[in-house]
């Protein structure tokens, strides 16, 4: 095989058995890789009704055919499993260098099953694969764990993916971090890893990715990079401001959710914006493997902030530097909690990286708790501290408490849906299928509401980023307040972004590249004559398979919904004042465009058409 290594590494943590098997070539062709092939294996091997934290759930790390090639942004691996936050299939990806190293070591997929009796980490060095004791690392943060594991392997260039205390403590939105700051962040993949007593996976490969047509790949990646270097956003905007450039833009549109989605404009957005970070705290930008965009932020806490917050980055507190925040994190830890203190956000974001937490769900859950506190439902005695909107100190303290499940952090560790239900106020949960919303108000941007409601992993901005048309104006401007055309837009974006995920690419490259720039890369790497239609069809196939998995898991289509606040409580002020989500206008059309039954189920004809029958 080309593009793919053709090899799956399987580790049974219960028995310690380590085996290699051939990658199913038909599945590789039809599901491409990454999110697609991971979903196909999960479908084959895991009962969707399984308890996400039981040994019977499996944890799949899947690369794509372009992972580890010289295609720009070919850095991705996807973690596929059943998510403990949602009960849905979850597919959570990360960049950095870990995915390419797994390919260089000779593996497309790593399937982890069972549960180790005692904490272990996995060491992969080409053909040498071994489980090593990790009791001495249990309870240790990501930064120190990574350093320790790397030291123990003794091999320079080793990349480590690991969990922090949050994963060990089964926080429902625990993340897996690699290269210290790159995260497979959402839906609790880190808790699944923790449930298996697996602290980390260190990998170093000395091989290379064999490609079918090296000359064609060279030509295609050159053309792809030319486009990225000419598009102003991927050549200037993202390197200069990162995704945080969106803070002021979304706020100006009146679509920046504020104080747990009770408002849609944050009066202090400028203080936590990309412009502010660049001017006062940015040390450098940073790229994942083979990326020519380099949207990553290396930031320093301000001098004034150092008196209040110390960063435990490693080497210990190195020049007060950390990485991030990205837009989503700065929003959830910032505007959603009413916090305008960028140093507190940097500190809380760094805690998320070190303890292994998803900052989106953490910030949103703290915001929901702040609403309960201000409404008199939660007392200071219960929360352990005053918890008004805007308190950076509470944000920082509760970030840490959540990772360790200490005090009120134990409630926050369950996510805002369960936390709200526990205190008799389920209405404070702002999300879909148990997962908290990201940073775009679906009342102001109608397409995002549809994207959130229909995402297969619970609320997510990356599955149907209709912001592109509704705010950015690409591929063509669409009125954010209108519902017309949004069903087709959401379906197209879902299918294409799924194909990008499956290829092993970072979806941010689509701010410059079209699918037509990417198809020749996949074809040259694999030797299979994919065209645009074939990749879109693969994306559709994967999307439908994920949907089927969720249906079998008991996630009813009636869960394609938004909270009452989004449907009934109009935005109180700002440019989108008076707007509510008109999901009901879009959902039936969405099902029709998908070729599903009116109640949202893929029928036999659709499944046969996609080869899923």
């Amino acid at each position, binding site marked *: 095989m080309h593009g793919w290594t053709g090899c799956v590494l399987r580790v049974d943590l219960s028995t310690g058995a380590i085996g290699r098997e051939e990658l199913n070539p038909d599945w590789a062709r039809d599901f491409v890789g990454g999110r697609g092939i991971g979903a196909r294996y999960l479908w084959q091997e895991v009962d969707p009704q399984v308890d996400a934290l039981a040994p019977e759930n499996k944890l799949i790390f899947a690369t794509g055919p372009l992972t580890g090639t010289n295609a720009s942004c070919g850095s991705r691996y996807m973690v596929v499993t059943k998510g403990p936050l949602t009960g849905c299939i979850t597919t959570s990806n990360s960049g950095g260098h870990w995915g390419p190293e797994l390919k260089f070591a000779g593996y497309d997929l790593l399937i982890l099953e069972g549960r180790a009796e005692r904490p272990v980490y996995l060491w992969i060095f080409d053909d040498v694969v071994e489980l090593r004791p990790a009791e001495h690392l249990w309870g240790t943060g990501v930064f120190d764990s990574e350093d320790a594991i790397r030291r123990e392997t003794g091999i320079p260039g080793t990349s480590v993916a690991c969990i922090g205390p949050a994963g060990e403590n089964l926080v429902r939105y625990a993340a897996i971090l690699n290269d210290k700051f790159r995260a497979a962040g959402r839906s609790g993949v880190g808790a699944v890893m923790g449930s298996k007593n697996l602290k980390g996976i260190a990998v170093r490969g000395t091989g290379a990715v064999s490609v079918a047509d090296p000359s064609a790949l060279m030509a295609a990646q050159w053309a792809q990079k030319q*486009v990225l270097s*000419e*598009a*102003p*956003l*991927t050549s*200037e*905007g993202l390197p*200069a*401001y990162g995704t945080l*450039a969106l803070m*002021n*833009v979304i706020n*100006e*549109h*009146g679509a920046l959710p504020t104080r747990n989605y009770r408002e849609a404009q944050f009066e202090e957005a400028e203080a936590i914006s*990309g*412009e502010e970070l660049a001017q006062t705290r940015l040390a450098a930008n940073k790229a994942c493997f083979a990326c020519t965009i380099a949207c990553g932020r290396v930031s320093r806490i301000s001098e004034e902030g150092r008196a209040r917050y110390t960063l435990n980055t490693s080497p210990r507190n190195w020049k007060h530097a950390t990485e991030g925040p990205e837009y989503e994190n700065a929003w959830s830890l910032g505007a959603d909690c009413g916090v305008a203190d960028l140093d507190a956000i940097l500190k809380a974001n760094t805690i998320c990286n070190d303890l292994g937490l998803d900052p989106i769900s953490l910030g949103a859950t703290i915001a929901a708790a702040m609403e309960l506190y201000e409404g008199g439902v939660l007392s200071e005695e219960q929360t352990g501290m005053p918890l008004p909107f805007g308190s950076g100190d509470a944000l920082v303290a509760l970030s840490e408490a959540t990772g360790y499940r200490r005090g009120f952090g134990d409630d926050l560790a369950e996510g805002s849906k369960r936390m709200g239900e526990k205190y008799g106020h389920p209405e404070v949960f702002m999300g879909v299928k148990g997962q908290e919303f990201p940073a775009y108000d679906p009342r102001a941007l109608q397409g995002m509401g549809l994207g959130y409601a229909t995402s297969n992993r619970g609320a997510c901005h*990356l*599955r*149907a*980023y*209709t*912001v*592109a048309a509704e705010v*950015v*104006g*690409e*591929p063509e*401007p669409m*009125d954010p307040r209108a519902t017309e055309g949004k069903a087709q837009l959401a379906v*197209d*974006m*879902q*299918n*294409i*972004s*799924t*194909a*990008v995920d499956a290829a092993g690419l970072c*979806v941010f*490259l*689509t*701010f*410059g*590249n*079209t*699918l037509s*720039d990417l198809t020749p890369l996949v074809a040259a790497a694999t030797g299979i004559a994919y065209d645009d239609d074939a990749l879109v069809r693969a994306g559709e196939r994967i999307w439908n398979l994920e949907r089927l998995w969720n249906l079998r898991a008991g996630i009813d289509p009636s869960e394609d919904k938004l909270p009452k606040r989004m449907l009934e409580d109009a935005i109180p002020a*700002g*440019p*989108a004042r008076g707007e509510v989500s008109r999901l009901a206008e879009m959902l039936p059309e969405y099902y029709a465009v998908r070729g599903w039954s009116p109640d949202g189920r893929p029928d036999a004809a659709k499944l046969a058409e996609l080869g899923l029958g």
Partner: protein
Amino acid sequence: MAAVKLLGGLRNKVGAGRLDVDAATVRELLDALVARGGEALTVLFFDDPRATPTEPHRDLRVLVNGRSIAFLHGLETGVESKDTVTVHLSGARGYPGG
């Protein structure tokens, strides 16, 4: 005077983040920014800087009170003294987000 907010890299190019501009339309407002920031801005603001512009540059985004001029009257969108006008560069290509 309309309150103008500039975002991102445009701040350096114009030399300000916020300013008040006296203009009756978005076109006049952009002309005022060119007068302040220099002729080079015309290349960023208008599709064809040599001709009388009818469209803003494809990478330019202008909001009047949070509403894109793409859904108002383009460059001819009226501006009043109580208005807030946001101007920034986008520069995306491709098929963003998939």
